[in-house]
């Protein structure tokens, strides 16, 4: 899908809508569907992929049960209903109320088409009906169905999500939370989990973002009660400083010393946050919205750095945080908890030790060799384009820098939903990226290839993901 409808549904006020987004994407569901129709010839005519001809690549990925008429009916029926759903959801400030809104809408659909809906809940229902317009809608319907169940079936969720999550009604936010393990599969526990995580984050913020003055004041309050000086004049009483806790202290355990050491990191975080996505009004610019978003990003990164003294802050964390923040932007508390929750996933990538990232890059190289030996040979041996030159940024920043924001959200949908794990999927997508431009690479020399790979041309994301998925099935053959 080259174009995603990204509408600022959570902000009813038109002023706060990032204009660049709305202008660029277009705010019309119909136009998106029209574009969806135009996609099919592209895949069919793709000369790069001549192996298995397919009408709709997605059909091949999953079980080939024929699309039922009831599905189409459900999709068609759901279309007029989903449209009104979308504008209604903006007033919901937190994500929690949105669940009830969408589930209510879904229950409304039930009486109309009970049978098919019941079936869709239980069976391994197939994906979109042969790539025609209600593609998005049916996926949205399926996701909503899945989310409104009491216990979410993860396999099912992953399957649907790997096709791409539509940008409506906070679905992506919920799905990502589930996929990242932030929310448990049991729906009933969601509100308590959310409340718990949010209060945890609040507590972290209070503890870690205090400057030493406030800390000393707090400690004093607990130790000495407030003795109000009744005398209006006279020598001020002096009190001993405990544990060498004075601002110029050079002791390792002194809060002041730690504070000054932390300011260096905080300065770096500040600089990076200011540079995040300068083209997006959401993140940068003079709007108060941008400022508050930047402050929230900063707080999250600072708290994370303090909680993880092993990793602290690494340049690039801001880029990874940006899409997460954007998706969950209703509640900044959650991204922080999320970031700490799945640090295993992403922090392995940010692992600056040469062993971590080097091994991943060499795996990518190996992968390419398996799938396209000619290209591999040309790249690594003939033109000596070392994968480190381009793949480092691809892998560590999870492709956020290579594509525009909307596309990278789509790619992340696939990354997160794949049961093999994000790293495997990432490698496949990188490999697919290389294969898609193979003609240009084979024709180029070191300079032009490097230039091409470091400024990867914008392409059809769905096609890219389709190719990446093909790589998976090919490897198993």
């Amino acid at each position: 899908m080259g174009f995603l409808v990204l509408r600022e549904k959570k902000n009813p006020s038109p002023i706060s809508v990032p204009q660049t987004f709305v202008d660029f994407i277009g705010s019309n569901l119909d136009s998106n569907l029209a574009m969806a129709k135009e996609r099919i010839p592209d895949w069919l005519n793709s000369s790069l992929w001549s192996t298995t001809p397919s009408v709709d690549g997605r059909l091949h990925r999953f079980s080939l049960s024929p699309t039922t008429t009831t599905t189409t009916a459900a999709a068609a029926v759901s279309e007029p209903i989903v449209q009104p759903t979308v504008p209604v959801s903006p007033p919901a400030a937190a994500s929690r109320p949105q669940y009830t809104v969408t589930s209510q809408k879904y229950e409304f659909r039930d009486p109309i088409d009970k049978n098919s809906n019941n079936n869709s809940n239980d069976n391994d229902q197939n994906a979109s009906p042969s790539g025609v317009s209600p593609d998005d809608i049916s996926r949205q319907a399926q996701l909503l169905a899945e989310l409104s169940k009491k216990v979410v079936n993860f396999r099912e969720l992953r399957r649907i999500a790997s096709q791409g999550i539509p940008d409506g009604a906070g679905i992506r936010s919920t799905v990502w939370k589930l996929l990242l393990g932030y929310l448990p599969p049991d729906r009933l526990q969601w509100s308590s989990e959310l409340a718990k995580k949010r209060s945890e984050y609040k507590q972290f913020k209070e503890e870690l973002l205090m400057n030493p003055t406030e800390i000393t004041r707090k400690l004093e309050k607990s130790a000495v009660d407030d003795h109000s000086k009744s005398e209006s004049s006279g020598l001020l009483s002096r009190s001993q400083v405990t544990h060498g806790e004075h601002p110029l202290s050079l002791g390792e355990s002194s809060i002041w010393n730690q504070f000054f050491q932390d300011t260096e990191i905080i300065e770096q975080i500040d600089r990076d946050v200011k540079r995040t996505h300068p083209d997006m009004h959401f993140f940068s610019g003079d709007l108060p919205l941008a400022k508050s978003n930047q402050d929230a990003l900063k707080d999250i990164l600072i708290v994370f750095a303090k909680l993880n003294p092993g990793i602290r802050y690494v340049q690039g964390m801001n880029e990874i945080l940006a899409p997460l923040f954007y998706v969950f932007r209703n509640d900044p508390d959650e991204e922080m908890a999320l970031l700490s929750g799945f640090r295993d996933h992403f922090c392995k990538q940010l692992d600056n030790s040469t062993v971590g990232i080097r091994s991943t890059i060499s795996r990518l190289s190996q992968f390419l060799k398996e799938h396209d030996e000619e290209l591999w040979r040309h790249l690594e041996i003939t033109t000596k384009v070392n994968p480190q030159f381009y793949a480092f940024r691809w892998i560590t920043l999870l492709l956020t820098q290579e594509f525009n924001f909307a596309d990278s959200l789509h790619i992340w949908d696939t990354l997160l939903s794949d049961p093999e794990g994000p790293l495997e999927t990432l490698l496949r997508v990188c490999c697919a990226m290389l294969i898609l431009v193979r003609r240009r690479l084979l024709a180029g020399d070191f300079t032009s290839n490097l230039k091409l790979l470091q400024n990867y041309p914008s392409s059809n994301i769905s096609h890219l993901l389709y190719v990446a998925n093909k790589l998976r099935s090919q490897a198993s053959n």
Partner: protein
Amino acid sequence: MVLVLAIGDLHIPHRAPDLPPKFKSMLVPGKIQHIICTGNLCIKEVHDYFKTLCPDLHITRGEYDEDSHYPENKTLTIGQFKLGICHGHQVIPWGDLDSLAMVQRQLDVDILVTGHTHQFKAYKHEGGVVINPGSATGAFSSFTYDVNPSFVLMDIDGLRVVVYVYELIDGEVKVDKIDFKKTATASAH
């Protein structure tokens, strides 16, 4: 949280060669936001040294200062507080608290930082607070030879000031602190 260093009466090179090494090791750049110097540095090298610690430097003239262009008094506002600086040799009797209180009312400041006596003092009266950081090098004064090196670091946070007093007693740095709040009506004159 603004850190303000109040220091003075070093008398380098006439009465002392340099700051005590223990003080020097603590005074590193990057921590302090403002420096208030009561005077009697006396030479330009000391001025430059203070400039490396913090670019925002305020000095008033002491009677032995070689740079004659420092002002006699200075006032500045940091956060919610108005601070005044005066070396103190102009105020007679030297170190007399009532006379200093008069100077404070004249300058209309909450905190008056003054020196010349080479003795640390922190005194509160109804007009405000008078702080004397003493002599940072322990230079002898007209009163006495027995002077402990001392200086003051103020942590200004809203309406509250925590004054950290650094003294070198018997070769060891001792730190005390003094807390005071500014009431909203205190500066109503």
